[in-house]
């Protein structure tokens, strides 16, 4: 079934009775050519591109809960390509290009909104660091504009330019940065994969990975054993547990990142704004809620909920930067479980087990990576070779020192 405005009108006239399920609920088969563990954004997009780009359709996505139950539905929905280190630059650039065609690719409106992202800076030194970043973005073929204080004021007149604790020197504007509707990304990929024959199996938890003679042979699940020639682990938030089933100890520490949404408000913030000094970022959803967040809670956690010190820090940052949001009320807070890696960049790589592939370590930048992550993971699983834009995301780079450390904070997982 193809979605369109005409279809919406037609269905509306006949009581919306004709809409078909967005995906099936198949029972697991005994064997697949490939299994993706994890029905989140990355797992679903991996399955989609395996089918679409590589013609693999005898594949299954195994999800222990419901589709999109992890971080794809618990983030602040920011989409950007503003990295500066080789490895990240080309990967996120590729991802943003995929985003820009995602609606027509998936025939699903993920509401990708390129409203512009502004990273504020507060000193000459920060300006120079952002200039380095902006130039790297342009060298990569993406866009960036350096704004001075007045330039920022033109875009964001409501900031507290006079009294804020860290004076606003300017900002780096990334016009193609923006937001998207997070759940819709999972649903769009799920629907697209399903239409290409991929079995999406919910409420099916993987409990073991079968390995024979150094080769993966399948998985054990709460719905029985399933054989597979290839298995991809795409379970950010639970990577350490699933990888341990294959005897791996990952360079990952799990941390909680909280985020917040306010009650619905008439349009008041028209960009994505990032305030580095305060570790605060904000945008306004199409429904009107202010969506914002800050830093990790900083302690290892799987609780998917946080504590007050970081909540208060985020609110204080909001108040020093843009006290006009003071009377917005926080409606809901939530916490995602982040795979924090020792350099802040992800892993898309083979493992020591033949046929077993690993996609993890998205820190807190995984949402925008979803299209390229699936694209590259599918390439790796189908061909056995890393995709060119993801070839630096190796698992052994911490041991060898080929790091991709954008923050420059070193091998402390929670500082990225």
């Amino acid at each position: 079934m193809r979605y369109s405005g005409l279809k919406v009108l037609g269905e509306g006239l006949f009581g919306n009775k004709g809409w078909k399920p967005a995906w099936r609920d198949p029972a697991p088969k005994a064997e697949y050519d490939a299994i993706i563990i994890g029905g989140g954004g990355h797992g679903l997009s991996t399955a989609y591109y395996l089918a679409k780009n590589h013609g693999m359709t005898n594949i299954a996505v195994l999800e222990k809960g419901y589709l999109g139950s992890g971080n794809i539905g618990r983030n602040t929905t920011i989409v950007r390509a503003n990295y500066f280190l080789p490895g990240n630059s080309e990967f996120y650039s590729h991802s943003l290009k995929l985003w820009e065609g995602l609606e027509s690719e998936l025939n699903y409106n993920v509401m990708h909104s390129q409203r512009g992202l502004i990273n504020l800076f507060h000193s000459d030194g920060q300006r120079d660091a952002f200039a380095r970043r902006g130039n790297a973005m342009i060298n990569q073929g993406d866009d960036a504009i350096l704004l001075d204080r007045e330039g920022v004021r033109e875009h964001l007149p409501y900031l507290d330019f006079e009294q804020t604790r860290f004076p606003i020197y300017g900002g780096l504007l990334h016009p193609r940065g923006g937001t998207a509707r997070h759940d819709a990304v999972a649903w769009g990929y799920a629907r697209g994969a399903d239409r290409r024959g991929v079995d999406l199996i919910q409420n099916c938890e993987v409990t073991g990975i079968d390995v024979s003679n150094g080769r993966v042979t399948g998985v054990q699940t709460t719905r029985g054993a399933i054989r597979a020639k290839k298995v991809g682990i795409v379970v950010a938030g639970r990577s350490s547990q699933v990888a341990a089933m294959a005897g791996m100890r990952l360079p990952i520490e799990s941390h909680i990142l909280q985020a917040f949404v306010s009650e619905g408000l008439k349009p008041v913030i028209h960009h994505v704004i990032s305030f580095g000094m305060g570790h605060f970022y904000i945008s306004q959803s199409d429904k009107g809620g202010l969506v914002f967040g800050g830093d990790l809670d900083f302690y290892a956690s799987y609780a998917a909920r946080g504590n007050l010190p970081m909540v208060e820090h985020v609110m204080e940052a909001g108040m020093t930067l843009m006290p006009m949001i003071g009377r917005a009320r926080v409606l809901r807070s939530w916490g995602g479980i982040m795979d924090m890696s020792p350099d802040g960049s992800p892993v898309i790589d083979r493992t020591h087990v033949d046929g077993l592939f690993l996609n993890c370590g998205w820190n807190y930048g995984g949402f925008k990576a979803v299209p390229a992550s699936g694209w590259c993971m599918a390439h790796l699983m189908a061909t056995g070779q890393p995709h060119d834009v993801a070839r630096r995301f190796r698992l052994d780079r911490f041991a060898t020192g080929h790091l991709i450390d954008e923050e420059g904070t070193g091998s402390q997982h929670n500082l990225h």
Partner: protein
Amino acid sequence: MRIEGKGLIDRDSRVGFRFDGRDYMGFKGDTLASALLANGVRLVGRSFKYHRPRGILTAGSEEPNALVEILEDGQQTPNTRATVQEIFDGLQAKSQNRWPSVRFDALAINDLAAPFLSAGFYYKTFMWPRAFWEKLYEPAIRRAAGLGSLSGRHDEAVYEKAFAFCDLLVIGSGPAGLMAALTAGRAGADVILADEDARMGGRLLAETGTVGGQHGPDWVEEVLGELRAMPNVRLMTRTTVTGVHDDGTYAALERVGLHVAPRPNLPRECFWRIVARQAVLASGALERPIAFPSNDRPGIMMAGAVRAYLNRWGVAPGKRVTLFANTDAARATARDLMAAGVKVAAIIDPRPDASTVEDCPVYAGAQVIDTAGRLGLSRITIAHRGSEFRIETDCLAMSGGWNPTVHLTCHKGGRPVWNEALAAFVPAPGAVAGLIPAGSANGAMSTAACLREGRDAALSALAALDRSAPDVPLPEAEDDTYGIAPLWHVPGKGGMWKRQWLDFANDVTVKDVKLAAQENYASVEHMKRYTTQGMAPDQGKNSNVAALAVLADATGRGIPETGTTTFRPPFAPVSVAAMGAGGRGKGFAPQRFLTSHEASLERGAPMIEAGMWYRPSYFPRPGEATWREACDREVAMVRHAVGICDVSTLGKIDIQGRDAARFLDFVYTNTFSTLPVGRVRYGLMLREDGHVMDDGTTARLGETHFLMTTTTAAAGQVMRHLDFVRQAYCAGWDVHCLSVTENWAQFAVAGPKARALLNSVLDAPVDPEAFPFMACGPVRVHGVDARLFRISFSGEEGYEIAVPARYGEALFRDLLARAETMGGGPYGMEALNVLRLEKGFITHAEIHGRVTAFDIGMERMISPKKDCIGKAAAQRPGLMGPEREQLVGLKPTLPDQMLTAGAHLFTPGEEVCRASDQGYVTSVGPSATLGHWIGLAFLKNGRARNGEMVRVVDHLRKIDILAEVCDPVFHDPEGRKLRA
């Protein structure tokens, strides 16, 4: 309509307020909702999606419809619940989400388009053409969505935050909460009793029953009187406990000043962090609507709310009221109304076997199947025994039963459990350690049961607190049956426009939930996210359970298997300003001031912020129009005369003990145990992962006494690191580390005349022979004990003199006055930066966390003779080798060309793109000494490329020039001047 003789309002205190431009009168004790109802105002807002006319549904913070903007001078508070906002003289409110007015709202056209706006319709359209999304579709959606408006102006009102501690926190002051507080209070425990309402008593204020033989509110007053007299009990009204966090930490929002006109210094709200050893959750229950066709008109209200308006506020919300309810308990609404002389047109009870004995018509086994009235209810249609007929009514009180307010028991991940008898979720036992649910929050549905559970919960808490329990008798109260037979929705007949609302606030109807199931968004989370049910300001308090029941029905599952979505903090919305209290303006982080701050300001120095410090950027002189002129002069002043710079912000760590030298050998790459007393050495410190953490000088003040200097930015990090290394790896070593940054004011005195200037203030002059470059030692300045270090960050003969901070300002002024007589003066951060660049000295612009000793040409500083932090990891192959970017100097090929930091480097002739990127510029400055711009950069294999040309490209600043790669030390590479 006000009913004489009813209610707990103060009829002697009349209060004038304004709503949507019209003036009204109410009484002290009124909420905006009760006062509007008393004035006959039913229409107060428009719904989120369809812009349907909406009135007041509830009498509490769960209100989904009656959200208004409260106006003040130049400021407004959107989405304020009229049911919570108390009126005061001069209060101004207005309806929201409507244009031009609440009676005539242009976007009500959405309601006509409703068949096309079903759940998730936007995922299926607005995709073509692509460019229209940001330009057309999205702006239109955004304008239509949202509820109230922010003013767009800074919220400069006062907010506060506070901490509190207690033995027992009682959440809610209804019968259960009062009994819990009374029991624990009498036992001597420290009790905090918090209630969201302005007045304590909970449902007892809204009912007519008796407690212990007294009228309910009188019993409440008696208990409160006793509690107020107890020094160990703190009563917090207008305080909503909003979140449960770890280890007994509860978040609460107190509405301190929202019930009065704004006053100076009076906080609007206070955000509390309450740490309680035990807590009793007596938060009551919330009544739930029934989803019948067109159940959203103004005038259709919750039955319990109708009772509350009648009994507490003396307001009849209608003249001909009907009741549609599926419990015995709801009948009280009809009885109370009739007793107050309000006409009850009918009771419609869906239970076929329901009692029909009331003083009004009762239709058992009947359902409301339609309603009418454009801006307010005028008529309902009911189906009864196979026939349909209409009843004229202006207020329909509905009740689908009650949901225990279990939210706080779920904040730590607990899931409530389904109770078939109550047809509701109740708290899972032990869901939050130390939080004991009691009363109707726990599923108790009579007053007597609530009183008993409240007392028993307190007794459990007292046992956990090891306190003996007093004997607290239970007062007598009603113990009636609840008698619910679940009814979630009433099927409607045909019509594309006929809808039964579940979620009033987000305009989610039964059709939407069914459509979600039809499209296989069948998980409860999928349904929620697809339809947006439960995501509105009430967070599904009114709609979750019914929506779940509809979904369960549509998917052929039971309610328990369908499960619930997750309740997360806050229980009720909390303003950003309250949780961020104190953060506005400069309050976000402490301001750190140098002792020289005033003196610098007097000289007109603009301040820049370095971390939390304020440091002078430059010291303008008359006639200087730009920073550059001042900077050039200050650089020349240091090179040719003498300059003074306050360097007190650098971290200073006092390190003492027999193992101090050994410790420094371990934390620095180079060796300090060989440093003689009275000498200073530059040290390089790595992180354990092999990258440079910081650099600085360390002085040996005595055999077992060192003074380490850190950069300003890394002072805290280094202190923490030293404590870690010492405590984790150096067990048994005699080393003591203590920050003395704050204790000393330290000034750089640099330039050819530095020694002459210093000798004019020192009690005994320094002798360059006895005090060579990198010497240190005690001196006296104007009779004050001080420390002198001969170090230089400028490349000139330089000293840093440190005095106890109390003398800092005086010494700074004295040095400046003397320097100015010698052609010198103060210099700021701009000149400091140029001076250090001319010498190729690095700062955190270069050691930015990705840089190794190898990269900056200091790999030989890693002593081969000893282990040190970071040494092993620095030897990883990826951290060495020619593909690494190495520190170099850069000078433009033409003297007037400017360099910019952040520019990237390319080999001339190669394409400018990521793949051919050769490096980047880290720092630049206009070298007054050399007469052209200079820069430091990291360049691939850079040290081997000395003399080569590189192309410097800064797209952002439109710079594209050629520059020559050179040694990073531009000025006096032999260091003759600083050793003078």
